[in-house]
């Protein structure tokens, strides 16, 4: 099973995701800000990052730029799970895919736990 770094600013939602992912055997480290997540990287050594783009302080895109600048983070799969609606996310997709290596973007209000679990499984294996 995989080590998953969850970057989710909402505590209540984060707890729900953690429970769901731990139930199927993943280890989850959760952070509310990009700064915290960058500090956790070295010790936790995640196989996959699941992140919201809207964060306080530095946003998810800035986090991804930083992540990709680290040798260990260059090829780490990343899944975006965001409240940004599809029409807002659409112009960002090319940058996320081409420059930041994000292959899956989920719209959080419409993403069920089952869908998230399936994507995590696929991406952690990739």
């Amino acid at each position, binding site marked *: 099973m995989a080590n998953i770094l969850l970057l989710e*600013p*909402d*505590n*209540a*939602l984060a*707890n*729900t*995701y953690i*429970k*769901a992912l731990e*139930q199927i055997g993943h280890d989850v480290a959760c952070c*509310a800000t990009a700064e915290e997540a960058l500090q956790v990287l070295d010790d936790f050594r995640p196989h996959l990052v699941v992140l*919201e783009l*809207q*964060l*306080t*302080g530095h*946003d998810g895109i800035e986090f991804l730029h930083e992540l990709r600048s680290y040798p260990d983070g260059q090829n780490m799969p990343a899944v975006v799970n965001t*409240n*940004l609606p599809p029409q*807002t996310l659409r112009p960002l997709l090319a940058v996320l895919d081409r420059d930041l290596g994000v292959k899956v973007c989920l719209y*959080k*209000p419409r993403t*069920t*736990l*089952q869908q998230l679990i399936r994507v995590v499984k696929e991406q952690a294996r990739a």
Partner: protein
Amino acid sequence: MPDMRTNQSRGGDMELLRSVAEQLKTPLAVIARQVELGELAGDIRQVDTTAIRTQATTALTLVESYLLGLQLLHQQTELVLEPVSVSSMLVDVAHELEGFAKQYGTGLELRIAGKYEPVMANHRGLKSALLSLGYALLEGYPLQGRKLTLAVHRTPQGIVTGLYGEYEHLSSQQWRRALELQGSARQPFAALTGGSGAGIFVAQTILQAMTTKLRVGKHLNQHGLATTLQPSQQLQLV
């Protein structure tokens, strides 16, 4: 000649509506995902009913406060000023925020030093404003393992009540900018909340109807948002 006031109200409606719609996504997502968690595990005990209840209460409070704000913008209602005890109000608000704060790993502290005469405010309006502000701060900028302080203190300008925490980075300039960006930016108050900060703007709308406003404030080394209220002269004479 176009009715300027109606146009302004409409603009205000849209801004508030957008930020409220954004803000409601999270509590509704928590409720939906929690129920799904129980279904996936095939065990209803996996469902965190406290999380569901507090998130539903937050959403309802935000909707209620939003409706009040909307009625105020359209002058369909007015907030009649009456003598209100800020100290009792803060105790009440802290009690209502308690469950939500716990869910976000934040403690609540009441700082009511001394006795305060009643202030001129509207009871329902002030409570709605403080609750909306509290929910927005707790959700948008959780002070994990730390405290959010509900405080009242006296200044030469009046009696100041507000919510404070470790928000050192908060400035008046950011607050002004956030007010400008409200409704047009998805995250107008990035320094204070990862979301739309709807509760903050709803609180501002309600307070404005009571002829006061929110501003960035500092109290005993903590920073936050506060409002200045005038003591009730009537009761002072009594």
